[in-house]
């Protein structure tokens, strides 16, 4: 059910002079890069560098202040639905409905993306099998562990057979076993199905291992681009972590507490009160 590809060459994502300001703050400042069809592209940067803002613009959740984007040949500003059909996304924060079962979460996604019923059911069974959740499909997702939720979200992101899979810090808070399992699976998907993967992570060794190409963003600007080896050569360093630090400096970044942190507290009170 993926949308028709209007192939314009080897690049599946092109970003040109992209800019996003929130009042005084420039979150993304004149960013340009491209992602090739079929590659695993890592987008790295310290906290508050503009990674998530960029992903939100690529995925139609935010409107750019200026600049242009093309994803799978479509413009997220003017051809939202075509772009939305082209990608699947696993958000930084979980986005499952935690009062629905695993099966119902997938079903809802399939209906939202108009995947025909028979095909939908077939893929749902398959994907649950692949992420190892078949025996838990009728359980409410609230009781799932972080790793299980992530796996289910990945299955959900793939249900409509997207061309690009966005993974925004997918391994945060996961144990090494689950992380390893997840990256193996993503790598396999990329090789077998040719799905382009766009990921962000704070774990340099993960990026080093899985990504074909890497872009480093800091203060809203791209400060380095290329393969892991190229970045190391550029900065004259031995590891990607050192290269990253050489590009972005050693200063620790202040990030404002997101309103979600406050909300979590409220939610606990609220739920405690209402249930």
């Amino acid at each position, binding site marked *: 059910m993926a949308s028709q590809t209007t192939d314009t060459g080897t690049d599946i994502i092109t970003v040109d002079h992209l800019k996003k300001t929130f009042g005084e703050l420039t979150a993304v400042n004149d960013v340009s890069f491209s992602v090739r069809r079929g590659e695993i592209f890592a987008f790295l940067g310290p906290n508050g560098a503009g990674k998530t803002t960029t992903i*939100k613009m690529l*995925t*139609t*959740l*935010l*409107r750019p202040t200026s600049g242009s984007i093309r994803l799978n040949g479509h413009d997220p500003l003017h051809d*939202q*639905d*075509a772009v*939305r*059909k082209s*990608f699947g*996304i696993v*958000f930084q*924060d*979980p*986005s*499952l*409905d*935690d*009062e*629905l079962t695993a099966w*119902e979460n997938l*079903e*809802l*996604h399939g*209906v*939202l*993306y*108009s995947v025909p019923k028979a095909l939908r059911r077939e893929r749902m069974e398959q994907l649950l099998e692949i992420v190892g959740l078949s025996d838990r499909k009728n359980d*409410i997702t609230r009781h799932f562990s972080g790793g299980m939720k992530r796996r289910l979200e990945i299955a*959900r992101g793939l249900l409509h057979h997207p061309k690009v899979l966005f993974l925004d810090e997918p391994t945060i808070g996961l144990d090494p076993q689950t992380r390893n399992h997840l990256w193996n699976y993503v790598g396999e998907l990329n090789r077998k199905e040719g799905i382009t993967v766009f990921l962000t992570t704070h774990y340099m060794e993960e990026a080093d291992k899985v990504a074909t190409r890497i872009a480093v963003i800091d203060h809203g600007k791209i400060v380095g681009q290329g393969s892991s080896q190229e970045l190391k050569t550029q900065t004259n360093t031995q590891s990607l972590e050192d290269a990253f630090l050489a590009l972005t400096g050693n200063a620790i970044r202040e990030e404002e507490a997101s*309103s*979600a942190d*406050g*909300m979590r507290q*409220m*939610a606990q009170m*609220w739920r405690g009160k*209402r*249930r």
Partner: protein
Amino acid sequence: MFPIIYILWLRQIKRYIRSRSRIVGSLGQPLLFLLALGFGFGPTFEKAGGGDYFQFLVSGVVAMSILFTAMFSGIEIIWDRQFGFLKETLVAPVSRLTIMVGRTLGGATVATLQGCIVLVLAVIFGFRTELTLTLLLAPVFMFLIALLFTALGTAVACKLEDMQGFQLIMNFLIMPLFFLSGALFPLDSAPVALIWIARFDPLSYGVDGLRGALIGASHFGIAADFGILIVVTAVLLWIGSVLFKSIEA
């Protein structure tokens, strides 16, 4: 479009049915109003020549539980927004209007169900009504109240970043809507100023219409109630959908 509206509607219903403790919990307040006020004020009300207060109060308390449930359903968008599920719907290749319609119908259905439960409880505690054709209008009014306030809750939620403003809404919107609506007192004998205030409160027409349908006593007239509710609901749905379209995650 319709399968999408249906599945979003179904989601709300499932969430409602699964949170049994929430259903039971939210019955406490209407029950208190019904029993404490209904039986407490009953004799005084009767002495003053107002008739049976309990019979009078039921429509108000049913409307109250619908108001609360509907507003919360609308405001739940903030929740979905903070905890991510809203993003899942916003990146889907579906128009915002479709999403909003599905959610709002779901929320309104849930609120109507909640109102039905309160009504059944009222019957258990002694509420009696004549079985006439106008009784069929009761569910219509209940659903209209539910729809109107789910749309209002949605519109309000689109303008709120997080739950910080929730207390404000509770105290300066929901409570006044309820207390100034004639849910608890008859508008017929209220001071003129209060009647005028009630005229600007959409819940007044909901309560009044429901009361007309249930016990045949209405202040504005059922037809006027119905017309005004329809118009206000349509306007709020429109405002809600405009605001919902502008949400950026």
